[in-house]
């Protein structure tokens, strides 16, 4: 239960600094940093990073503001437009192009490259793709986190099914297999679902997270250049598979239902390594496996989030310095406990595989492999508009008799002009 006792605006390093410096804190400056996590463990770690910054910048405090994930982009946009921009914040990959294009992010390359011992070249080049241009850097990915399958081992054992871990060894861990496992593990009488979508939000704000991994495993994609590929036969086949899981098999938590993996109400889910923190009090055995493969082989998918400084923030210099501090080697290693890093030295170091005490090293190896081979979720300069256009069409998928091919075709014709 303590996990729920979340304090929202947790950390103010002011206390420590005022103890040490008394009257000097009159001129204290506060950096406001927006995040979408409310997890006590995450905020404690972030607070420690802020503390170590305060040690060298005694007048500075950092305040972490939690904004719920679903409203995040909208809220910070409103704050910026309202002249109340945060200084720093997390940003998801799909928002990156729109924010860069709008000039909403500060170029921090100067500060980073001149920071002591920063070693900018240490960041893996593919991971930086969305965040830098030839001469500017708009953010540093702090989490390059592959999508993973979490499974309820107790339920697998009780049903006598071969676990995903065992199947990986003989190569039979496929989406078809996941589908049939989910069907077998669905137990309506005890309210246990076979499969839950990403954070249970897989039909709304995270619909891309639900479908893109499957689509890629089947050889499809969202869009290539300016052409929409969501209606390609391969993409349609993948979406059909998921549709069958929800409606033909009835194994997957459908829209409008609750079935939380983390309280034991679903046997399988797709999510990221940071969610391990939710399993601290789990009353069941659980395991982690990579995403299943499909006809097109493995298609690891990576969700990415970066630390950015906002162009309209009130303390741009200081914000850039804090960004440099937060993403230096030491702190990236620290954050690696929850958020798989993009620094090669940390990722390849011995420390990484043992960084997460809740996860065995061989499981962390899945994460490392995923980062290595995975591709980032689709993003676009006009993503907000694309999302607005796509949403009603995605909605149209979620009924028993939906014509998947026709719906995906309509979806594509809607978003094509925007690409």
């Amino acid at each position, binding site marked *: 239960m303590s996990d729920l006792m979340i304090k929202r605006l947790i950390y103010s390093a002011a206390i420590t600094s005022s103890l040490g410096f008394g009257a000097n804190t009159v001129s204290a400056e506060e950096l406001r940093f927006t995040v979408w996590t409310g997890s006590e463990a995450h905020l404690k770690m972030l607070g420690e990073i802020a503390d170590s910054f305060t040690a060298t910048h005694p007048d500075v405090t950092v305040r972490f503001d939690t904004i719920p994930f679903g409203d995040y982009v*909208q809220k910070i*946009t*409103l704050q*910026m*437009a309202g002249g109340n921009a945060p200084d720093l914040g997390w940003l998801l990959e799909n928002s990156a192009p*729109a*924010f860069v*294009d*709008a*000039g*909403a992010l500060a170029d921090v390359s100067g500060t980073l490259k001149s920071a002591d011992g920063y070693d900018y070249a240490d960041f893996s080049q593919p991971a930086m793709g969305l965040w830098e241009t030839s001469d500017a850097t708009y953010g540093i990915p702090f989490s390059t986190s592959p999508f993973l399958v979490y499974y309820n081992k107790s339920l697998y054992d009780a049903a006598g099914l071969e676990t995903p871990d065992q199947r990986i060894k003989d190569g039979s861990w496929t989406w078809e297999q996941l589908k049939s496992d989910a069907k077998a593990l669905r137990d309506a009488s005890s*309210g246990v679902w076979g499969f839950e979508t990403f954070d249970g939000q897989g039909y*709304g704000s995270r619909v891309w997270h639900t479908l893109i991994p499957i689509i890629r495993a089947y050889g499809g994609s969202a869009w290539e250049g300016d052409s929409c590929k969501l209606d390609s036969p391969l993409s349609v086949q993948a979406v059909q598979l998921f549709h069958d899981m929800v409606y033909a098999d009835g194994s997957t938590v*459908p*829209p*409008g*239902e*609750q079935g939380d993996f983390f309280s034991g109400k679903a046997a399988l889910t797709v999510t990221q390594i940071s969610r391990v923190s939710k399993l601290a009090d789990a009353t069941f055995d659980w395991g982690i496996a990579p995403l299943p493969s499909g006809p097109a082989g493995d298609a690891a998918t990576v969700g990415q989030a970066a630390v950015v400084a906002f162009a309209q923030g009130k303390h741009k210099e200081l914000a850039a310095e804090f960004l440099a501090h937060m993403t230096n080697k030491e702190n990236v290693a620290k954050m690696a406990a929850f958020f798989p890093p993009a620094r090669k030295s940390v990722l390849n170091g011995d420390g990484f595989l043992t960084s997460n005490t809740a996860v065995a090293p061989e499981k962390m190896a899945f994460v490392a492999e995923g980062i290595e081979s995975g591709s980032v979720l689709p993003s676009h300069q006009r993503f*907000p*508009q694309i*999302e*607005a256009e796509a*949403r*009603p*069409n995605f*909605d*149209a998928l*979620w*009924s028993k008799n939906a014509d998947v091919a026709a719906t995906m075709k309509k979806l594509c014709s809607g978003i094509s002009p925007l690409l």
Partner: protein
Amino acid sequence: MSAVRKGPSLSLKAREAITGWLFVSPILTGFLIFFVGPLIAVFYYSTTEWNLLSQQSRFVGMANYVDALTRNETFWDVLVNSLVFAAGLVPLNMAMALGLALALSKSRPGAVFFRTVFFAPVITSAVAWAIIWTFLLQHESGAVNQGLSIFGIDGPNWLHEPDWAMVSVIFTRVLKTVGLNMILYIAALQSIPRDYDEAARIEGASNWEIFRRITWPLLAPTTLVIMVITVVGSLKVFDHIYLMTGGGPQNGTMVLAFYIYEQGFKFFNTGYAAALAVVLFALILLLTIVQMLLKAARK
């Protein structure tokens, strides 16, 4: 005493005028700043293409309107939804309010209790009401469908099928607001003199005749006010949509007020949202004029 107060330079008429302006000046000033000014601004904004994120705007003339009216089919869906919402909510709400008021206007034992019950949602925060009903309307685990299953009815996935979602939102909204209309009707019924009723009864009129010939005509002014309040309330519905459906599924519950908010503040199409606001303004102005004409015709 009074001779001193009445300054010789000001006539009574001028003094009254000054007092009048003094009395209306607070609301007038605020109204000009926070309503009229913004209203003019929204017309201007609607002629720009304005991205809230980049905060850059350029003049595009009527392009936003052309876009809404000709190119964007969502706009027409939204407009139709708004009208469907009003057309579904207003008659249901008013009929129910009148029915409850007729049943509860006389002070029988129990009447006060039931009035309290039907009015309770009115004083409940709309957000709270919407949240609770979102739970109750879940597909399998929701109380509504569990209740229906007792009677062997397999309830739909209320909030996730476009037509049912609209029905659900209308229904919960009616439950939330019907109490206020009921009280207004009760107040009006109680001000109808008893003897009208009794005189008619002595002449052998049936209940229905009394209602149709006496009560209903006497309620007409109240009915008009309630209709105005309810129609406007239905066109500005925001919280129920935001919390229960988010405009979905398939834009099935996307109404104008919510669409303005999403376009303006979520998808950054601020200029387009302003054009939508102008459309809403025009729609309501039209309704206001119709209502004024109705009122004038009655007199």
